[in-house]
């Protein structure tokens, strides 16, 4: 049985005057141990889908079966437990608690499953070691680089040993070299047996995933080998990228910004 079964999922945002059909008919499965990239243009519904996968939101219609259980029927407290026990979520904007140290941030999900303080500390340390941040345990988020912050967030997602690791554009706020580190970390986690679903804008990253799903306007238009799906519409993407680059350069010259350095860390 598949770890994730999505059966005709739709999501409609009712804005009163208009309705936004963010997801229209999403219907695919993800097996345990898979590494799936979700790609698509901005506004195509990727985040909406991820939020449903992460039990942060519920579909308007359709069923989402996680490990054979329909989570759309669960009560709020049960959903919270599912989020805690089954899912590790990594956000584009890290979402670390600013006042807490790296270690305390990683300990957080363990509190909600009643783990003792000492065991929490041990597990959180081990998780930070796993993302090579064993020497930064007492640093606050503001004392860490962007890449380090995202690795703290990944450690926090991993510390509960989740069935499913979800990452919504985890490299979106990072420069390409740091993003490369993060992707390599995900590949390693996949090799170690984790099931991972990752949203990315960058075809190069998606191409390295064994499987990719392309979403357009709330519909799955392609699902297959990462290599193939990621570059399917390469011409469109190149055109869009060129336009974006042109706009950026225009702005940069206008504001005489610092030149974009490939090795510089974000934040």
């Amino acid at each position, binding site marked *: 049985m598949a770890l994730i079964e999505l059966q005709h999922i739709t999501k409609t945002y009712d804005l009163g005057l208009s309705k936004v059909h963010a997801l229209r008919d999403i219907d695919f499965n993800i097996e345990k141990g898979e590494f799936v990239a979700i790609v698509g243009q901005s506004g195509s519904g990727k985040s909406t889908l991820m939020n449903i996968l992460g039990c942060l939101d519920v579909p308007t219609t359709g069923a989402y079966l996680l490990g054979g259980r329909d989570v759309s029927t669960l009560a709020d407290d049960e959903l919270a437990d599912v989020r805690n*026990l089954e899912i590790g*979520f990594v956000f584009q904007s890290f979402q670390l608690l600013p006042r807490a140290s790296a270690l305390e941030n990683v300990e957080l999900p363990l509190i909600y*499953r009643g783990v003792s303080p000492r065991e929490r500390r041990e597990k959180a340390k081990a998780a930070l070691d796993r993302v090579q941040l064993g020497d930064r345990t007492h640093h606050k988020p503001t004392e860490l680089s962007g890449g380090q912050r995202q690795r703290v967030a990944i450690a926090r997602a991993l510390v509960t040993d989740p069935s499913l690791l979800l990452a919504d554009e985890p490299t979106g706020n990072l420069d390409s070299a740091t993003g490369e580190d993060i992707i*390599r970390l995900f590949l390693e986690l996949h090799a170690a047996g*984790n099931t991972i679903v990752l949203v990315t804008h960058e075809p190069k990253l998606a191409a390295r995933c064994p499987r990719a799903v392309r979403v357009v306007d709330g519909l799955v238009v392609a699902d297959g080998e990462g290599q193939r799906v990621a570059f399917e519409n390469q011409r469109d993407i190149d055109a869009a990228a060129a336009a974006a680059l042109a706009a950026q350069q225009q702005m940069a010259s206008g504001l005489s910004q610092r030149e974009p350095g490939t090795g510089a860390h974000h934040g």
Partner: protein
Amino acid sequence: MAEATLPAAAPKRAPIKHKRIGFWRSILRIFRELREAIVQALTSLVAHRLRAALTITGIAIGVGTVIAIYSAVAGLDDSFAKQLSMLGPNTLYVSKWSWGSNRENWWKLRNRPGVGRGDYRALLAGAKLPEAVAPIVGTQSTVGIGEHELQNIDIRGTTDAFLESGGFQVKHGRFLTSVDEEIGTDACIIGADLEDAFFKNAEPLGGRLKVGPMSRCTVVGTLVRKGNAFGQSQDKVLILPLSSFGRAFGAKRSMTIAAVAPIGRVRETEEELIQVLRTYRRILPDQDDNFTVNRQDKILQSFNQTTLALKVVAGLIGVITLLVGGIGIMNIMLVSVKERTREIGVRRALGARRSTILLQFLCEAVAVSCVGGMVGTALGIGVAWFLAQVTPMSAAVSPSVLLLGVGFSIGTGLLFGIWPAASAALLQPIEALRHE
């Protein structure tokens, strides 16, 4: 940077078997979440010192006011209870004055004839129920030995029956006897303050004192210490035989006659006293009494009415100030929830339930109000103590008042924290995460 040094975790999870939090774990979780909530609340308190301090001040003033007023009223109660204890519970006091009467009455009562020796003799002869009848007259005068003099000593003139009316107890020596009264001896009994003042290192019995115009009184007994009531010592007292008192200070003073009723027959005795006096004074059936038979419980009633009014006012002031403090709490909690919306989203995404979030923010509200309550309690006790020092009032700080202060503040925190906390708990996780 990230090298491939990960431990190879085995893919061991079976997809069908759902992970669960066991029963005992879920019980443990409540305590661990509570502990975390308290730590968070204190951390947040320290992080927002100034903001918290202002709110704490509000609560502290409210709680402090309540505690100060209640301590003062309790002190009043104590003094009163002490003074009442001088009056035996079965003793009736016949007097020109009505205890606990108001000002209007005062003018009416002023014109009544005084209670005198005639009334006393009439009661002695005509009232069969009382176990003892004692006339009491009093004044203030100077008492001394040689050059050593004390002013404003309560001088009482009475008879041997006075002891039975309750109030004083003899410590050493004896009380007055009927012989003292008949002969008009120079015997006197002194209160504890006088004993201390004049016979510090000497034997009081047989000692000689100058009392007002009397050049020589002989101490035949001493009284057990009674302590203070309404900030005044009840031990600055000297008791003389009625006849001797009359010779020295004049016999025409209005007196109070104490009559001790048999236990359980206070009402009957009261009736009898009224009947005997009405007959003696030739009061016609359609005329009002021109005297009053006072009872301890009557004065207690009027006193309780007064202090009840005080307590109600204190309570109102307390409720209003706590209301103001509570609004302060609600305000900073709403700000706190707003500021930490994203944090709430993160916690919810990581598995915090609604109740967890509710608990966290309630703890924060209670932490603020509780600190306010403790500061306020200290403040209130301080003010009560200060009042007791500079005014004749005494202040009694009872443990129940402390509980009241802390309880009130916790209640305020809960009451005014519940809405912000609930609004935090009801946030949708994704909406909270998206919050800027």
